[in-house]
């Protein structure tokens, strides 16, 4: 039982790594997979001065957090799929709860909590030290099995 679960988690980790690699914008932001569990994907955005939104405070721009939440939510969908199909983000709603402290990376913990035949639903929380004291929170929906160039 435990071996079976470990094998599934291992498969998800490999899958998530494969899908996060070779994505130019993920690489430009330095984002990387930290961990994958049975139901969650942990994706990290390292601090970088080029991603700063307010040079007075050194806090990251909301856009970089958006990219982290979007990418990690998509990975959570891939990790939850039993059969690999292309996906496209339908919508993403982000609540910015507090500025990210400068000099520290931000981690997104994303989960795909519901999958139907056509649509996947995700939740993600971006935090630095404590997921209960989050920087941002996001919910998203993804279309499954899209053809290239036709997201709907």
């Amino acid at each position: 039982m435990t071996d079976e679960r470990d094998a599934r988690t291992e498969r998800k980790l490999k899958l998530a790594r494969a899908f996060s690699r070779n994505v130019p914008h993920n690489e430009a932001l330095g984002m990387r997979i930290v961990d994958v569990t049975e139901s969650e994907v942990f994706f990290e955005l390292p601090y970088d001065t080029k991603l700063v939104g307010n040079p007075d405070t050194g806090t990251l721009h909301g856009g970089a957090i958006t990219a982290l939440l979007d990418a990690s939510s998509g990975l959570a969908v891939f990790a939850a799929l039993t059969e690999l199909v292309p996906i496209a983000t339908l919508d993403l709603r982000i609540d910015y709860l507090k500025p990210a402290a400068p000099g520290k990376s931000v981690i997104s913990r994303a989960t795909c909590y519901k999958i139907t035949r056509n649509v996947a639903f995700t939740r993600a929380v971006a935090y630095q030290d404590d997921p209960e004291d989050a920087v941002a929170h996001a919910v998203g929906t993804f279309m499954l099995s899209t053809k290239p160039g036709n997201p709907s």
Partner: protein
Amino acid sequence: MTDEASAPPSSPLLDRLIAAKAAHDHQGLIDAVPYARFLGLTTAMQGDELITTMRFAPHLIGNPTLPALHGGTLGALLESAAIFQLLWRAETIVLPKTITLTIDYLRSGAPVDTHARGTVTRQGRRITNVRMEAWQADRAAPVATAHAIFLVMRG
């Protein structure tokens, strides 16, 4: 701890934004924000509208197979278009704080320049609501739309 209550807040960023706005210096607006430079944003007036453009560059790609822009870059462009609109139209410049951002992805973003604009739908004393749209070749066929709520308070 700095004592923020006793003196007006001194902000080099705010000073740069105010100076850029006074001089109609669009590049100065962008240069004040490191992440806007990283994305390759530019702003320009087209008639009465402030248009924010994200010049295409390979590091903006999210799907190399299609290829298509990363959804995060479109979200960042839309949010930036709203913020630049607020900074540009405001009589007194304050830094808007994004509270919520909701993005609808309508089409995959082709590897070309993307334009965006923000329209203020309500300006309150503390809260400003903005709608945004982003398009590429055809403005009538947006790649993404969004709406955002900003906290806009002095100090």
